[in-house]
């Protein structure tokens, strides 16, 4: 039998079938070279074992597989899904895409933007909000209530966009990873505007993290064939393509700062970012696209037109919300008008609240889980 390091290693781990194991044992007894090698391998294996032991915590947090499976079924799995589950699923997937550094604008095809807006409007995940919050230059937020069937239509369209049917965006600059900062001064310096922190927090609140993150820049081109494909996919009637050969859209998402807190069993995070810039080319009428979007959602033509004309599309982020699963209302917060969205999960019994507003050119978002919405508003009002 010849000396074989790999086989010795397997012998060490008792991973050889018995005839082979016996053969190695017999060989070892007679071969000093292999004996020496075995002890080297053993020492290294023991060393690696003790190094890896450092990664093992004193105790693991409890991980209840049944609860995890319930979450998986409720949030992560594809259809049949409630609108809320669909949103959460998109969110989970987006988050992991980001986490793995494979960020790209999955769904930037015109009308499908609306779908992204749904995702970010709930975004408890900072990455999603940081990257997507405002694919327009956001000044205001407006809500379009949608039902389950409409949500399904948006989902289907988003999936088509994701598969690249309407072209693929080019990543000009990747989104950065969140970087911890020490204080407000450091955060403000990094993001280029004055970051504010809450002056009042509920009792028992502890800061978990304070990070800044740079957003992505994306270039997207859509030629007439792709535009037509998108229009065909929406089956919207009576909409003409813009009189241009291709549409190019440049999206630049600047820095964002995020502060996360835990409050009892709940969590709250405050996101602040300068409004992203989106340059939309001449010849493209955003109101017409908005109108097409509303028609796509099934709104009668006249209503779609009236509503689309009433919105300042250059500064308003229109958020379709599944009205049967969330409550939303306009609120006065931080001295300006904002949007408060609330949801209670039937399955997990957890309450989420998202508060969105814009002040002094900075978009603010607070996402909270199991925190009273009134407290969320107080936190917003206390920003200094």
């Amino acid at each position, binding site marked *: 039998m010849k000396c*074989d*390091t*790999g*086989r*010795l*290693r*397997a*012998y060490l*781990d008792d*991973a050889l079938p018995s005839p082979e194991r016996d053969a190695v044992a017999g060989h070892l007894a007679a071969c000093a070279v292999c004996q020496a090698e075995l002890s080297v*391998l053993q020492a*290294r*294996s023991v*060393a*690696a*074992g003790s*190094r*890896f032991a*450092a*990664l*093992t*915590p*004193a105790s*693991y*947090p409890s*991980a209840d*597989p*049944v609860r*995890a*499976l319930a*979450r*998986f079924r409720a*949030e*992560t*799995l594809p259809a049949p899904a409630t609108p809320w589950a669909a949103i959460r699923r998109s969110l*989970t*997937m987006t*988050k*992991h895409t980001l*986490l*793995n*550094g494979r960020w790209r604008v999955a769904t930037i095809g015109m009308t499908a933007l609306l779908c992204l807006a749904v995702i970010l409007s709930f975004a408890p995940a900072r990455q999603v909000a940081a990257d997507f919050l405002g694919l327009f230059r956001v000044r205001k937020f407006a809500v379009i209530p949608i039902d389950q069937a409409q949500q399904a239509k948006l989902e289907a369209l988003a999936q088509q966009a994701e598969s690249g049917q309407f072209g693929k965006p080019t990543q000009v600059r990747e989104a950065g*990873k*969140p*970087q*911890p*900062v*020490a204080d407000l001064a*450091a955060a403000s310096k990094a993001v280029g505007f004055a970051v504010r922190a809450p002056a009042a927090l509920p009792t028992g609140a502890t800061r978990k993290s304070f990070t800044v993150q740079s957003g992505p820049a994306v270039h997207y081109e859509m030629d007439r064939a792709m535009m037509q494909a998108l229009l065909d996919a929406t089956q919207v009637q009576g909409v003409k393509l813009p009189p241009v050969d291709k549409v190019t859209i440049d999206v630049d998402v600047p820095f964002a700062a995020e502060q996360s807190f835990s409050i009892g069993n709940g969590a709250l995070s405050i996101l602040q970012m300068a409004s992203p810039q989106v340059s939309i080319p001449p010849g493209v009428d955003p109101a017409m696209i908005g109108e097409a979007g509303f028609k796509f959602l099934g709104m009668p033509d006249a209503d779609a037109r009236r509503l689309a004309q009433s919105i300042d599309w250059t500064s308003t982020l229109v958020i379709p919300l599944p009205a049967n699963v969330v409550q939303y209302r306009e609120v006065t917060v931080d001295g300006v008008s904002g949007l408060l969205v609330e949801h209670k999960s039937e399955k997990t019994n957890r309450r989420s609240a998202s508060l969105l507003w814009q002040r002094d050119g900075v978009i603010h978002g607070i996402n909270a889980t199991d925190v009273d919405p009134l407290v969320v508003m107080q936190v917003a009002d206390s920003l200094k």
Partner: protein
Amino acid sequence: MTTDAWTRAAAQTRDEATFDALFLTHYQPIFRLLYRIAGTREEAEDLAQETFLRLHRSPELWKGTREKPREHNVRAWLYRVAANLAYNVLRSQQRRTRREDVVLGQTLSAGSWEPNPVEAAEREEERVAVRHALAALPERQAQLLLMRHAGLSYRELAEALGIAPGSVGTSLVRAEAAFERVYQNLRSSEGGGR
């Protein structure tokens, strides 16, 4: 309902039950592997969800067969996906930590693991070094070590990495040697810098 529809519905129920069983069996060890690397419960849970989502999207591994799914295949597959996600986390955390060291003079800490602060600090140093060493290894070597130390057998490792069972020992020797070399380099450069 037509007979076909019934058959389909029954098959679907059976498939879902198969998947649920796999989820419940493997969730905890997968979560723990991810927790050792991610360091927070939330991130480990999210990564575990992602791992099982990928399993769900690969029905050929578990769906439709009347016999029990090939258990060791699924286990090996899940560990490979989890080890891959963990490796990505290590790499991105390492990039982040480097930048902080330079830009902000801070180091990333996932928090204390022990009540004794001195021990905790030493352990943290060790943890950081191990993580950096793993992140510096080629992906397959890091994955192999992660999976081995999470308890996969040689047969499962071979399955996960798509290599012959007879080659696992050799791969492991190489990976351990590379790991120890990088680890010692890191520790000695740490010591020299102080």
